[in-house]
């Protein structure tokens, strides 16, 4: 009987994952991570609340496995909340869920697994794992349910973390999971899907950023709203409300549709432009990791996803020294924001990925206009899970 640590959020997915493992006869230990102090203001509503922990505890009791809540507030505050605010300070759009998975969740659960003699760490993520037939290293794959696939959020896991990981839901659809939850009579069967980032109540990022950066208020300093030629179109009262690709709430009136093209932290300028100016031709990445193999020695063509649920774009990846890479997009893409992750796929296999550091705009070309397509930028700057 293998001992498996199951990270439980109190939601339906991780509940089903834990229940399935327990039913299959594994020695399951359920663990929830307390990431945020709820006594402090009650402004976090969605996830890791005492009610969610109670739901997880009920599932554990139903299947007779032990369950614990472990404090990770400090690590979460440092690695996710500080990062989140710092990225906005730099005019970038953070992806806290990717950071949280690698630096908080799988890190803490992995350490605890070793401490408790567990050989695997399971979660309710929709993704699959296998071993590379040539290198033998663990690889991350897209979930069978393409609509639920969460591999994008997991690209930054280390080989060590992947070797412990177990994703029991990878072969299931969300419908399967719901049915299973009802079939098992789980307390969490009817819980609604999580949508927002867990620590921002009601999606109000500005309010969160304002509270979080109260000391220096950098994010609340006034600045200019300009067009790409540098002409001042208006003024803003803080950078935190702006994300590349954003169209609403810009506070300027113009005869044409304007979008946020870039956010310049050092000059506190928000640059607007029309749709064509949103188009990116190339990206530079930092913090690039390779999952199933060593860093490729030569440029190669692949598919990159530049945000969650992005259909992907063909690109040429040129790996460079120091965990960096340059991506030439084979067709220009709209609304790519520095701070988000670019994740490379070969079919279902996640090859690796990195953090978007700079976006080179393609400028106005007929080709760019044609291929701009309907892809929206990250609506609220971040996407969850």
């Amino acid at each position: 009987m293998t001992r498996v640590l199951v990270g439980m959020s109190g939601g339906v997915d991780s509940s089903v994952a834990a229940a399935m493992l327990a039913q299959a006869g594994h020695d399951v230990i359920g663990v929830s991570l307390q990431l945020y102090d709820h006594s402090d203001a009650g402004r976090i509503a969605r996830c890791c609340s005492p009610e969610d922990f109670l739901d997880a505890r009920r599932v554990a009791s139903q299947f007779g496995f032990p369950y614990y809540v472990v404090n990770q507030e400090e690590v979460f505050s440092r690695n996710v909340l500080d990062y989140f605010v710092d990225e906005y300070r730099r005019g970038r759009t953070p992806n806290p869920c990717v950071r949280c998975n690698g630096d908080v969740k799988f890190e803490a659960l992995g350490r605890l697994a070793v401490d408790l003699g567990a050989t695997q760490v399971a979660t309710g993520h929709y993704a699959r794992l296998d071993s590379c037939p040539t290198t033998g290293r663990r690889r991350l794959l897209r979930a069978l349910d393409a609509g639920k696939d969460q591999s994008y959020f997991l690209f930054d896991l280390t080989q060590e973390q992947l070797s412990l990981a177990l994703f029991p839901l990878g072969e299931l659809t969300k419908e399967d999971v719901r049915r299973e939850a009802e079939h098992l009579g789980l307390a969490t069967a009817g819980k609604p899907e999580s949508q927002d980032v867990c620590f921002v109540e009601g999606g109000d990022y500005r309010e969160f950023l304002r509270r979080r950066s109260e000391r220096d208020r950098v994010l609340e300093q006034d600045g200019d709203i300009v067009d790409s030629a540098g002409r001042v179109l208006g003024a803003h009262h803080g950078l935190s409300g702006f994300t590349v690709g954003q169209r609403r709430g810009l506070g300027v009136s113009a005869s044409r549709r304007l979008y946020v093209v870039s956010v310049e932290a050092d000059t506190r300028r928000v640059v607007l432009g029309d749709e064509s100016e949103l188009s990116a031709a190339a990206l530079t990445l930092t913090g690039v990791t390779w999952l199933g193999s060593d860093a490729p020695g030569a440029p190669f063509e692949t598919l990159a996803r530049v945000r969650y649920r992005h259909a992907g774009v063909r690109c040429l990846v040129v790996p460079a020294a120091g965990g960096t890479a340059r991506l030439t997009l084979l067709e220009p893409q709209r609304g790519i924001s520095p701070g988000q992750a670019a994740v490379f796929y070969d079919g279902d296999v996640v090859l690796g990925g990195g953090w978007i550091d700079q976006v080179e705009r393609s400028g106005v070309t007929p080709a760019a206009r044609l291929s701009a397509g309907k892809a929206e930028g990250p609506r609220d700057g971040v996407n969850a899970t």
Partner: protein
Amino acid sequence: MKGIQMARRVYLDHNATAPLLDAARDAMVAALGRPAGNPSSPHAFGGAARLDLESSRREVAALLGGDEHEIVFVSGGTEADNLAIQGSARAWTAAGRAPGHLIASAVEHPAVIESCRYLESTGWRLTLMPVDRAGRVAPSELRAALRSDTALVSIMAANNETGALQPIEELAEVCRAAGIPMHVDAVQAAGRLPLDVRRLGADMVSISAHKMGGPVGIGGLWVKGSRSVKPLLLGGGQEARRRPGTEPVALAAGFAAAVRSARERLADSSIQRLRDRMERELAGAIPGLVVNAAGATRLSNTSSLTLPGVDAEAMVIRMDLAGFAISTGSACSTGAARPSHVLAAMGLNRDQSASTIRVSLGQSTTSDDIETFVPALSAAAAALRGAGVGGKA
């Protein structure tokens, strides 16, 4: 429901709550078996309930050497602390004075510190007294912190995390000499060591039933003589106008039985012998083990142990899986560990604090328990130390 298997478990977390004593359960069952009556009712049912309640009150007062009319029954230690501090502050301002100055030690229970912090937000000033390496407030420092507008000093008798005893009589003497009232949180001390409120020289003392084997849901605040403490709740004149609400007669009966039993055991040093033996054996088995507050006189049942290089949260889980209930000493309502303000005030750094567990024995603890616990903890400490993997975080 499979539930949690409770068989063959060893309970070493008595400072969180102690198992209900048979005597307390019997007393409650007997009280619940008598005809129901509200002690405030004029009829025979009410009269019988009143007699029941007051005989329990006498019993509880006797534990502290106080007068029975000086005991206010409340819901527990937390309410007792809140009533002592906020009720005193209300009485202070009700007398027409501007908000004054409060003193508490930095190692108090959150019920005390948060009550003080709350008052601070309403215009009171607060001094949190530092403590020495063993968790004690120096009487001379307390004397220096007193001000002409100091309305109350609140210092605990024994610390819940470390068991360290404050030099409470000397501290009370400092207050008495300056004419400043003193509240003593004796939730952990009451029933475990002799407490005589007259000799102590305190003005208010908080106690709780379930830390000494009584039921959860009842505690007491001893208030000296006619000292004015305004109620925090409104809606009735019960408990000498200090705590409205129909009195829980059966809980009080259980409380009284636990007090009776505790008084009979005050001279019994068997728990201390077990605790000392445990510490000795663990010190021999676990390299680098530190017994916190060892420099102070401590409660006879409590051990705060720093195990260098061991994650205390993982240790608590590992021990629970092995059938032993211990604690990190400071926890959220979810069960997650919380960084300890007590250990921080004593000068422990974050790593030391995160490697600290609390083992608290009680009347139910047997030498068999300790004989199995010591090797289990030692083995777990060795395993956890070996498990330490480098992390990104």
